[in-house]
Every structure is written in C-alpha cells, then in structure tokens.
C-alpha cells in the first residue's frame, strides 16, 4: 500500500512538473516607483509611472525606434508612408492595413486616426492640446488615408503624430463607449493589452496575439507599484522582479552594477530638474529675491550629491541635447551676492518660502538639498509634503510659491518653452499646461520661433527666449538626471536600450525572457 502511494505521488509529481513546463507562461515582472497608476489615457498620461505603460498599449503614425529617444530615428508605425506638400503645410499619411485593436474593438482605420488626433487637440480631453494648435484640419480621405493640414509650418510635425503623448492612436469606438473609464481601460493597437488593474498594486497586460508586427514573445507583463525604494530593490534582488525602475542615484547604480546577472541601463533623455518660482506670490514678484534664489542654488553640488553616473549639470532652462537648446548664461552660485540682493529687497534677515512637495523619495531628497542651500542665504524653505498624486493636482492649482518639477519633453526646444514658459500655459488658466512661474517674458520669441522656417533664425529666437527666461529668473535649472533601469540578464529587450522617450523600456513583440 505504502509503495503504491509513493509511486502515485511520484507519478503525480512528474505529471505536474511536465504540466507546468508545458504551460509555462513567459511573464515579465516590472517594478515601478509609484503608489498607483495615474492615467492610462494616452492623451492625459504625464507621470513617470504611466508613460512606459502607454508605449506598450499604443502606436502612433510613426514611432521612436525602440531604445532610442532621438527625433532622427523616427520610423513608420501605423502609417506605412507619408508625403508632404512643397510648402510643408499639407501632410498625407497612408495607413497600414489590417491593424487590429485589442480585444473585439475591430480594425484600425483612418476614422480612429482622425478621432484620436482631434481628441489630442482638444483641451477637454487632452493634456497636450497646445501641441496641436498649429493644426488646421485633420480629415480622412479614405479608410486608409489621412490628410493633415497645418496653419503654419512647425519644427517637427512627425513629433506630434509619433507614439508619444497626443500622437498615440486610440480606438474611437472604445474611447466613445468607455468615456471616463478609458482612463483605466485603455484600448490601442500595441503589442500588449491591459487586462487587469488592481488599485495601488499592479497592472497586468496580456500579449496582443493579433499585433501587426507579430505575436509578442512575452505572454504577460505584471507592472507592480512598489513606492518604497528598499522594498522594490529587495524584490528585484530576490528575483521577484525581472526589471526595476532604478534610483537616479550614484550608489544605487554602483551597487547593482556589481550584482551578478544584473544589467544597469542609464539612458537618455535626461530630465531637467527646475525650480519654478511663482512670480505672482509676494515677495517673489521682486526680481532681486528671485535672483537671490538662483544664486543660492549650487548646481555643481547638486550634481555631486546625485553622482556623476546619472546626473549632469544643466546648461539652460531647456534640457541638453534638444533641437534648439542654447547654452545660456546662468546665474553663478554666489552666497554673498544672494544675501546682498535679499537685503536690498528688504529681507536682511531672510524670508520664508512655502512650497508643496511630493513625498516621492528621489524628489524629496533633491528638494532637501535645495532647502539646505537656500538656508545658507537665509531663505527658510517650508515644505508641505503630500503624496505624489495630490502634489500633481495641487501645483496645478497655483498653490505653491515655488515648485520643483523634473521633466523630459519632446526633444525640441519649442515644446519645453511652450509648456513651461509661455504665458498661455500658465497653471490655473483654461489653456494651462505647466507654466508654474507665470513666466511671460519670452512669449514673442517662442511664438516667432514656432513658425520661423529659417532654421538659423529659429535657433536664434530660441536662444534669445532661453536667455530672457534665465535673466528674469522664471525658473532655476538645477541638474539633469538620466533614466536608470535595471534588468536581470535573462531579459532581452530585442533592441539596444539607449534611450527611452517614454522614460522606461518599450516592451515590444521582440522582447523575450529566458
């Protein structure tokens, strides 16, 4: 009897083992430094935790080559080819045929493209509406041809139809049927479809078998929200996570580079960390006070704290390497002069600066360095620390006297300047984007550069705009931070991961896990 039992157990075990290998799913576990998802509606998604995910779900007419963040390397995506008119105003896109949306949402046609781009251009449904201001009309010629007409030529038209921000193509039927639910039930044409959302825990994606580039090699992606750095690192070290959002921190990079079977990838684009100073709050309407803040901030020291492996010094109020970035003359670090300026402005004993700050560890740590630097000139920075989502909401209500914001944008100076420093983009206005400082000194140059067709003149206008913004101290550039990700060597992206427009790795049909 005993022997029978033993044999039966052994047989069962063999069977089970065979079963588990046969049905072994290839599951990619990704760990993210956030408590929860923000927005998966691609036309609304702006936060670091949402962007990579959006790139797995959606396609654009063209796409950034996976692993690259360069405008030079755009390649066809949903559009197979396109033509532009001689004056650069009329663009005709020929769509790929037989592209399927996730689930039962049918085939992608020019209707979806027209709907998506119009949706992206509407500030009621999109956070990127201002990018589409120069678009005069978008229409479908037939089921697979779309014509886009511009009011004026713009620096990088393909940029606004790429798989980034507003250029992501959504299913018209799904977006209309789901309404506000689209936020957490996005439907696109990309290699992975969102199948489950557990609030504050994870997102689960399933391979889109009908993906037009072929069925993905990975069956499932579990995107886990682990806000605590040490918990996330431990989960990665123990193998629970295959891929982890790294800390933009020298020690972190060094530590994980030493681990066996781990690849640390430090990639572009850099996010420029900027302290926006709210000019409408007293006494920061006084340029002397703003200049004092600029002189108190020591960007060299900030880079030293962050570490040379991931941080670089800023050159302007636009990140380095963008089309049109100008090496501006920044305010030198000068504690004595800053103090003198404050005294001249009527604050010989210093003054308080009240800010709303996110509890996100990396950002909170940077802000503590700024806090210590400002203290040396007598500015007492008082932080109200709130969770990341509340912070995003509150700073857009114009509540903070200064605001530390770190961002990468589409790599053209125009976009950064428009969104952060054009008066049109001022927060708490109907056309708001992310102008937290109420900056308005360079409106004319920014507008002129946007429609300038002569490349040299355009560059000159952008340069003037950047210098004016620096001189008026709308914002103080502090440091630039590259993106850090780590993976176990059994994960193969299927491409060389050097850049990530989406701030994270694009998981494609070619990505695999051994």
């Amino acid at each position, binding site marked *: 009897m005993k022997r029978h039992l033993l044999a039966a157990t052994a047989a069962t075990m063999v069977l089970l083992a065979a079963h588990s290998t046969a049905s072994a799913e290839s599951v990619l576990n990704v760990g993210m430094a956030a408590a929860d998802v923000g927005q998966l509606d691609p036309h609304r998604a702006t936060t670091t935790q949402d962007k990579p995910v959006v790139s797995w779900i959606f396609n654009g007419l063209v796409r950034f080559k996976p692993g690259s963040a360069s405008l030079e390397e755009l390649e066809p995506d949903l559009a197979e080819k396109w033509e532009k008119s001689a004056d650069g105003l009329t663009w005709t896109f020929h769509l790929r045929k037989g592209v399927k949306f996730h689930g039962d949402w049918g085939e992608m046609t020019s209707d979806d493209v027209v709907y998506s781009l119009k949706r992206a251009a509407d500030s009621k449904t999109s956070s990127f509406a201002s990018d589409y201001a120069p678009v005069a009309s978008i229409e479908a010629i037939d089921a697979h041809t779309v014509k886009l007409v511009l009011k004026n030529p713009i620096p990088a038209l393909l940029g606004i139809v790429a798989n980034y921000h507003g250029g992501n193509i959504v299913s018209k039927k799904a977006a209309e049927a789901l309404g506000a639910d689209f936020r957490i039930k996005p439907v696109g044409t990309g290699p992975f479809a969102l199948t489950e959302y557990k609030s504050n825990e994870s997102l689960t994606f399933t391979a889109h078998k009908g993906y037009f580039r072929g069925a993905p090699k990975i069956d499932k992606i579990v995107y886990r929200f682990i806000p605590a*750095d*040490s918990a996330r690192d431990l989960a990665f070290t123990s193998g629970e996570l295959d891929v982890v959002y790294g*800390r933009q921190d020298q020690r972190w990079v060094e530590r994980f580079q030493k681990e066996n079977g781990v690849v640390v990838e430090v990639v572009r684009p850099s996010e420029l960390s900027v302290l926006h100073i709210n000019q409408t709050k007293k006494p920061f309407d006084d340029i002397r006070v703003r200049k004092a803040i600029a002189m108190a901030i020591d960007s060299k*020291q900030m880079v030293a*704290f962050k570490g040379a492996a991931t941080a670089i010094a800023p050159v302007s109020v636009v990140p380095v390497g963008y089309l049109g970035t100008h090496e501006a003359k920044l305010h030198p670090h000068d504690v004595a002069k800053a103090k003198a300026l404050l005294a001249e402005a009527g604050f010989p004993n210093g003054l308080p600066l009240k800010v709303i700050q996110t509890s996100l560890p990396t950002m*909170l740590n940077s802000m503590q360095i700024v*806090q210590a630097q400002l203290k040396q000139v007598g500015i007492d920075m008082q*932080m109200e*620390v709130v969770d990341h989502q509340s912070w995003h909401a509150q700073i857009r209500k114009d509540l903070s006297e200064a605001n530390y914001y770190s961002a990468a944008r589409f790599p053209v100076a125009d976009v950064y300047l428009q969104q952060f420093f054009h008066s049109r983009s001022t927060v708490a206005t109907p056309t708001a984007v992310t102008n937290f400082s109420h900056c308005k000194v360079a409106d004319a140059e920014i507008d002129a550069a946007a429609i300038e067709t002569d490349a040299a003149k355009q560059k000159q206008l952008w340069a003037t705009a950047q210098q004016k913004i620096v001189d008026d101290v709308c914002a103080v550039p502090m440091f630039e931070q590259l993106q850090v990700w780590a993976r176990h060597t059994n994960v193969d992206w299927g491409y060389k991961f050097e850049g990530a427009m989406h701030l994270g790795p694009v998981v494609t049909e070619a990505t695999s896990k051994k």
Partner: protein
Amino acid sequence: MSTSAAEFRPSVLKRALRSGGLLFGIALVVVMIVAAIAAPWLAPHDPNAQDVLLVLTPPDAAHLFGTDAFGRDVLSRVLWGARISLYVGFVSTLAGVIIGTAIGVVAGYYGGIVDRLVVAATDVLLSFPQLIMGLLLVAVLGASLGNLIIAIAVTAIPAFVRLARGSTLTMRERDFVDACRTLGFSDLRIMFLHVLPNILDEIVVMASLWLASAIRTEATLAFIGLSVPPPTATWGGIVREGFDNLLDAPWMSIFPSLAILAVMIGLNLVGDGLRDATDPKGAP
C-alpha cells in the same frame, strides 16, 4: 478603607524604590529626556548641515552613528529627533490625559444621559485602532507639529475617559463623597478635589503606558511620512530616510530604532513598576 490618597503614599514610595525594574525604567527615561533637552549642547554637529563629501559614511570617531544620504550626522539627528519625538509624546499624552480624565470624571459623577452619550462617543472612537485613527487625523489635518499632537491626543482621550469614568463610578458611592455632599460642597469641588485625587494613581500608571504608545505612534506616522516636514529630524523620520539605503548603510536606521526601543522599554518598566507599587493587592 483609605479615604485619601495621602494615606498610602509612603508605602507606595517604599515599594516603588524596591522595584529594580521601575528604577531602571526611570533611569532610561530620564537619560533620554536629558539627552533631548541638552541636544543643542550634546550634539556634535548641526543636525541639518549637509556635506556632499561625507555622504553615507559608516560610524567612526567623528560621526559616532555615521552619516546619512546628505552627509548629516546621524547622532546629532537622533539627539535632536528625541526632542520632537518626546515632545510630541509628552504633550499629546498630557492633553489626552487632562481632557479624557475631565470628561470621564464628569460623566461618571453625574451619570444619566451625559454618561450614556459619553460612553457611546468613546465606543465609536475606541472602535478605531489607535494608529488608524492617528493616520486619519493627520492625513485630514495635514502633517505639522501641532496637528500631530492633536491627532495623537485625540486617540488617547477615549481610553482615559473610560478609565476615569469607571473609577469615578465606584468612588461616587463611597462614604466620603456622601460626607462631602452633606457638608454642602459643590459638585465641582467634590469631583476634582476629592474624587480625582483618589483615582489619580491609576491614571498615572496608564499615562506612562500611553506615553510609550504615543511616542511609538509618532514614530510610525513619521515612518510613513506623516510627520513634521523635512529637514526637521524625528526618530521615525530618520528610520524612514535610512530605509532607502538600508542595505548599504544600516546605521542610519539602526540607531534611531534603538533610541525608540530604549524609550519604549523605559516607559513600560515605569508603567509596570508603578502599577505594582500602587496596587494594594500586590503588596509583598
């Protein structure tokens, strides 16, 4: 039957002094309080002074507890952190004790509808775990020193209402209270000059235990980021900041944790010792 607290005090003191645990507890707590008060003189460095060249240095002669991710001296931060942590603990417990006891004595003394309302209200408050209650209040009020004290005090109030009410209920029936009434003393005078002194020992015992719990609650709230905003050091906050580098630089979390542990042990020993000393049944 003892009718006045004064009668059994000498024996309480004697028993208390014989209890080694109590003495050790008192010593621990006193050392911590002295360290907190003397922090400005004891701390070798400015607790908020950053130094980019000294980031995450392990404990050595210049920095006995090592430095944190900003190059700040952990020993100085633990000492300064003691001020906030102990201050919040003491003030919030004191507020909880005073308010809770006053409500409890009044409810127990008058009884009737007042009593029933108070009991119902404390039932509701007691149904929330202390930490959840504190968390909720701080989240709603916003994280600041004042709000932290309010939140922790509020969590302490119902427990003291219950204790004071129960004890007052039994005191109310005592002969000396009747005597006071016969003499025509006002209710207020009877409650706070005659009933209160007789229930005070129980309240003091519980207060010492609650003090430990208040300090722990503060540390826990600070650990999850709901405390005094940076750069001010609090024990829970230092532990949390150390957590980011727990694997490379464990000293950042270990030392403030030890400080919390020492105070917890000290206060619990004090509470236990006081209880044994004031409990007539426990007399040797």
